[in-house]
């Protein structure tokens, strides 16, 4: 702008040595600083305004803020807990129980959704018309229906419609499904079982050594070793052998009908079952699309080149396509895992005792410490997502294409 004004003026009469100075509010640097100061001041003022309002309101409601309530007795039981918990436990204990429940359903959901998602994603690419259409129908159905609706469907329409304990569906008299949940036989470990675990550990070490040796031998001589079969035999065979030698130190505790309910065994409460089912089926549809896109992103020339080198189709998939596809798949996949973890908070709608329903729900209502409860809950989810995205960035840096 400055230069333009100079050129447009008459160079004969106007001296070039005295340029017309633009007004100070048109200077980009000054403007930038002014904008930033205004933005900061506005943010801080807004924050202060909210802070003062909150303090006044809290004083009027007679609520003392602070985290002291975490150590007082909670007085309510939780239907599912991974660590010992009773009604006399503190609110702090309740937090850990709830957090573990959230993590439990998230981790299981991630595992199931990944397995199902990869199967359906690959089915979607199948040359078989019927299979790929079925996969498409699955994806389009589950992707376009709200997750909450799916959770409600499994919980209220399916699992709440199960028969009473006396009329439960039984699977070979070992597992039972009724309105109270899914009852599974629980393993009872006898004293000698530790040796089986030791054997498993030894097998894992042997497998690592073996595969390293096989790799080195192939590098040196070109000879291949049937690694997969040997690894499978080692991993299964050695623990089984020790298991048999120590006299089968494992028994099963079967659930049995006593009175109006089943006793013994493992029970999966219907809230957990429906949440897990809905989360896995819903997320699997998204993962399937990610897997399909990832595999399609590897150009067909790679497959053709691999075939022309005489590599067979299963090895082409394993050694050529998948490593390249994973580079595309992993970042959005992690995003889905994060979404699944955040979506597990929908548990609050059906009463699965997760972090939101227990801590931001029951504890908040009992103590009235709204700000503390919500802040802790949000902080947990923020921590989880920041941690996962940090890990993802690290991984991404490792596998990213090294270009010029």
């Amino acid at each position, binding site marked *: 702008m400055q230069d333009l004004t100079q050129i447009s003026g008459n160079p004969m009469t106007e001296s070039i040595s005295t340029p017309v100075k633009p007004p100070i509010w048109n200077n980009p640097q000054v403007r930038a600083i002014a904008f930033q100061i205004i933005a900061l001041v506005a943010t801080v003022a807004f924050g202060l305004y909210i802070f003062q309002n909150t303090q006044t309101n809290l004083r009027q409601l007679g609520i003392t803020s602070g985290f002291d309530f975490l150590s007082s007795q909670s007085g309510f039981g939780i239907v599912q807990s991974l660590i010992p918990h009773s009604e006399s436990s503190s609110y702090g204990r309740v937090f850990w129980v709830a957090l573990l429940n959230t993590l439990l359903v998230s981790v299981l959901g991630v595992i199931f959704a990944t397995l199902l998602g990869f199967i359906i994603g690959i089915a979607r690419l199948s040359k078989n018309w019927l299979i790929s259409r079925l996969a498409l129908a699955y994806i389009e159905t589950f992707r376009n229906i709200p997750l909450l609706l799916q959770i409600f469907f499994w919980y209220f*329409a399916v699992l709440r419609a199960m028969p009473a304990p006396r009329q439960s569906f039984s699977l070979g008299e070992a597992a039972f499904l009724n309105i109270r949940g899914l009852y599974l036989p629980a393993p009872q470990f006898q004293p000698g079982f530790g040796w089986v675990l030791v054997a498993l550990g030894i097998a894992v070490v042997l497998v690592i050594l073996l595969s390293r040796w096989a790799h080195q031998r192939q590098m040196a001589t070109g000879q291949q070793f049937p690694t997969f079969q040997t690894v499978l035999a080692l991993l299964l065979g050695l623990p089984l052998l020790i298991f048999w030698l120590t006299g089968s130190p494992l028994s099963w505790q079967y659930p049995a009908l006593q009175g109006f309910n089943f006793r013994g065994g493992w029970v999966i409460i219907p809230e957990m079952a429906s949440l897990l089912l809905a989360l896995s089926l819903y997320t699997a549809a998204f993962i399937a699309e990610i897997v399909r896109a990832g595999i399609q992103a590897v150009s067909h020339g790679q497959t053709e080149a691999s075939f022309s080198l005489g590599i067979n189709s299963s090895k082409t998939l394993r050694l050529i396509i998948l490593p390249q596809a994973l580079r595309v798949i992993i970042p959005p996949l992690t995003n889905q895992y994060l979404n699944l973890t*955040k979506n597990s908070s929908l548990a609050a709608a059906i009463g699965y005792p997760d972090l939101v329903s227990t801590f931001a729900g029951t504890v908040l209502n009992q103590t009235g410490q709204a700000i503390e409860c919500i802040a802790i809950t949000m902080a947990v989810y923020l921590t989880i997502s920041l941690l996962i995205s940090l890990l993802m960035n690290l991984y991404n840096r490792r596998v990213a294409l090294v270009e010029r």
Partner: protein
Amino acid sequence: MAEAHIPHPDLPPPVSTIGVIGWLRRNLFSSPLNIVLTILAVYLLYTALPPLLRWVLWNAHWSGDNRADCPADGGACWVFIRVHFEQFMYGFYPDDQRWRVKTALVVLILSAAPLFIRSVPGKIKMRLGLSLLAIYPVIAFVLFKGGLLGLATVETSKWGGLLLTLVIAGVGMTAALPLGVLLALGRRSQMPAIQTLCVTFIEFWRGVPLITVLFMSSVMLPLFMPAGVSFDKLLRALIGITLFQAAYMAEVVRGGLQAIPKGQIEAAAALGLGYWKTMGLIVLPQALKLVIPGIVNTFIALFKDTSLVLIIGLFDLMNIVHNATTNPDWLGFSTEGYVFTAAVYWLFCFSMSRYSHSLEKRLHTGHKR
């Protein structure tokens, strides 16, 4: 004299490679594995489809007005939906005022129709679209809420069903997109303070589940406001959903901004365009076009997420159906209720994704492989 060479006429291709048989061989029976898979899939369809069709159509009950018209004989009871249909659409909106909702819908369809006709020139579409965005919310709000022009006031707590779902989705979409664009521009800004503010905002909202946002807006927002100021429950949900989705939208738009070569900005600067003109006339039109699929995906996510307002006690489509299934007169028809709701949501989401596909195809100007 040598005879002229007459080539043998082309033989027809083998029967097994053309027509129905060829298609079957190529697509269903190309290898032993595929034969097994086809048989499995056919078996799956054979076991699943007939009972499903019997339940949904053949054995289903369509006519009647109470549950006695639905004997338990393995068929769906669509009477349940028919009886509650008006409620599912309008919630607790007063019967005699429902014409207002219908009027608003007709106005929307008539005024937005030219946007979807291809022969209408782009410039007119642009003006019509923008003025619709500015005027229609006011018309709709006046019609729904009333209290003006002799219309009886209908409190927002009476709004419900599909109406409420569409209101939340519509407001969320129209507010989240511009906010998301501003946040994305802020995140790409050269000013460190603006950038930090935007990054913090975006990462915070993306890091927490929507349900905690709704909890926060219903529990904490009253604490933040001076005593006496109370927000409408619907407004609180709207603020929560909009801020939440704006953060996601910002990330989508940022992807588009990053894909625009720097030369475009430099060329705009060389022509003497200021920041807002560069962004508004040069960068954003290209960037937004690139990320249409992402924007529509966010819209679809927003539409599905409207169902979460159930948590804070608003009666959207999902909650009103859930409520009807717990009606003592109609116990045991939750499957029908949820299937109907799923079909409605599915229809909206699926048509949005189809529309984005067609839009993407129409707008792409040859930069893609």
